[in-house]
């Protein structure tokens, strides 16, 4: 009996996986057997076929060797050198650039700002996107209409968004503070007060959160309705259903979103550049100095290539560590449907 049950769940899990993958054939068992035969992983390689395969992927191989692997090695070399742009000569100076990372207070400032921004932005983006996705998932009619509407900010170029929010966020005349004034709140000097620089950018980011929302929505739609019905029988409330069914069932989308948003937050550039660093008028140069901004200034305004390359490698290491921690931590909570296959 237990064997029978195990079999049943396995089949349904594979079925669901196959439906998700877009295959349409009905009979599960013969299909599975045939698939193994079709894409057999053992056996000899056909010489002609292998050569053709390499030929097809050759654009990527060339690109990888030049623009990824080659560029990484070169970047590493530059980070241990002083680069003279006029003569194109990289003079080795040992670990000087890396030592400078620790002595330049602006590196620490920009790193702290970026970290603060990420810690503020990512949870808010996740919560807001998930909230919107749940709303859309609950709407019985017109969900597509609202989804289209909500997606429009995502289509708006960052420059246009920034040009508008630059005025909306104005502490004296901006619409946001006017709106807050209506409900009796005196809004802050968003773009001037160092404490409000990051929230300003977070606000702009939240306006364009719909990409994350769409990913959540797709995950929510895949949660089998029976689970909720069974839970309701057991008397589970809304929160309980969310915590014990929704969250585990969408955990892989959650995991993906958190990692992608974190990586993006660490590289935030466009919004900060457009709101604060276009010209000399920046009113809070300390608080708005993000890591990617400082790196860009060092590389393409000061042409301090060695130092900028060292900064880039530090960023790479930091992102790797954080992603690694998230993966290690996340894997404990992520429920993969394929696990039971």
């Amino acid at each position, binding site marked *: 009996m237990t064997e029978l049950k195990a079999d049943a769940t396995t089949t349904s899990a594979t079925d669901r996986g196959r439906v998700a993958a877009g295959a349409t054939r009905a009979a599960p068992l013969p299909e599975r057997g045939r698939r193994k035969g079709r894409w057999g992983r053992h056996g000899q390689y*056909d010489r002609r076929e292998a050569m053709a395969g390499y030929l097809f*992927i050759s654009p990527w191989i060339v690109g990888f060797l*030049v*623009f*990824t692997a080659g560029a990484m090695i070169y970047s590493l070399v530059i980070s241990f050198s002083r680069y003279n742009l006029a003569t194109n000569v990289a003079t080795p100076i040992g670990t000087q650039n890396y030592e400078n990372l620790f002595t330049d207070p602006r590196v620490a400032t920009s790193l702290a700002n970026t970290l603060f921004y990420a810690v503020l932005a990512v949870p808010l983006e996740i919560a807001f996107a998930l909230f919107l996705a749940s709303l859309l998932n609950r*709407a019985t009619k017109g969900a597509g209409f609202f989804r289209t509407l909500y997606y429009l900010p995502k289509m708006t170029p960052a420059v246009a968004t920034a040009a508008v929010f630059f005025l909306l966020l104005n502490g004296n005349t901006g619409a946001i503070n006017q709106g807050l004034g209506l409900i009796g709140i005196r809004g802050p000097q968003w773009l001037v007060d160092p404490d409000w620089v990051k929230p300003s950018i977070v606000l702009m980011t939240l306006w364009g959160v719909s990409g994350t929302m769409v990913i959540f*929505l797709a995950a929510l739609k895949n949660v089998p309705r029976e689970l909720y019905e069974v839970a309701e029988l057991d008397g589970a409330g809304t929160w309980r259903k969310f915590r014990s069914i929704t969250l585990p069932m969408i955990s892989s989308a959650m995991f993906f979103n958190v990692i992608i948003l974190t990586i993006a937050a*660490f590289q935030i550039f466009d919004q900060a550049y457009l709101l604060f660093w276009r010209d000399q008028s920046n009113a809070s140069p300390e608080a708005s100095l993000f890591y990617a901004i400082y790196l860009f200034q060092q590389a393409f305004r000061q042409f301090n290539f060695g130092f900028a390359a060292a900064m*880039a490698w530090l960023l790479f290491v930091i992102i790797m560590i954080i992603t690694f921690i998230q993966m290690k931590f996340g894997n404990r909570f992520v429920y993969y449907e394929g696990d039971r296959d």
Partner: protein
Amino acid sequence: MAVIGSTTPLQPVPGTTKDTRGRTARDRTRGSASRRRAGQVVVYVLLGLFSLLFLYPFVWLLAASLKGRGQVFDNRLWPETFNWSNYVQVFDELPVTSWMVNSVLIAVLAAVTVAVSSSLVAFGFAYFRFPGRNILFGLVLATMMLPGAVTMIPIYLIWKELGFLGTWVPLFGANLFGSAFYIFLQRQFFLGLPRELFEAARIDGASYWRLFWKIAMPLSIPSFIIVLLFEFQASWNNLQAALIYLNAGQPSDFTAPLGIAYAMTRYSPTAGGQGDYQFVMVASLLVTLPMLALFAFGQRYFIEGVATQGRKG
């Protein structure tokens, strides 16, 4: 055995399991229908509220683009005076036409090159069996994790060495070699095609190129369009590359994002500009319109593409 197992109702059919009082979930749902309707009302009120929040900046932008000098800051959604002439004057004030033309051409080049090259590579990974295939594909995926900053400087030096600084080449050149996410996307699609299709063509004597060009490509048009649209949008938004490679040139050589950034500074009231910020608004609107048009045409591709991104995790 398994077949029997899968048809035996071991798992409850939705809504038919009885609870202790002999009511099914569906009965209870019916019982609390009014509560459910109230819930729907709350959902729609919230959806409407957020619609207003998401739409407000668009309406504000449209209104501001029609306002006169100095009125831009009054936050009225219905301008005091309608200055339709802004839409004519902006072309004298700023080389908006050049920006748009430059951006469209670069975006088309970027999208077409990356879509074709990524499809080629994806087909290589999807169809052919060769030593090291899985390791190489792992490398493709791994490059997605690499922050652009790490390779930014060497790539700049490569383009400088080749004499391409100040040209459009650095803004799309690397696309000739495929891009990890698009390779992944196209490969997924190719893997979904029945292999018999290709085997049959092989038996009929079709070359590998023919398999790709005459069978795989025509069938993969939906995901090919996703790649085109995604890259067009990415290129249209690309501020940083334009800052690096085009900022030293004439304003008329700028792309749309670089142009708007330049206009923001030129007219910004805080930077001692002339304060004619309505022109920035008109230009911003003009730069946004092509994206909205693209969305109107390919909404389902955008949504599907983003959802696929999530499924990758």
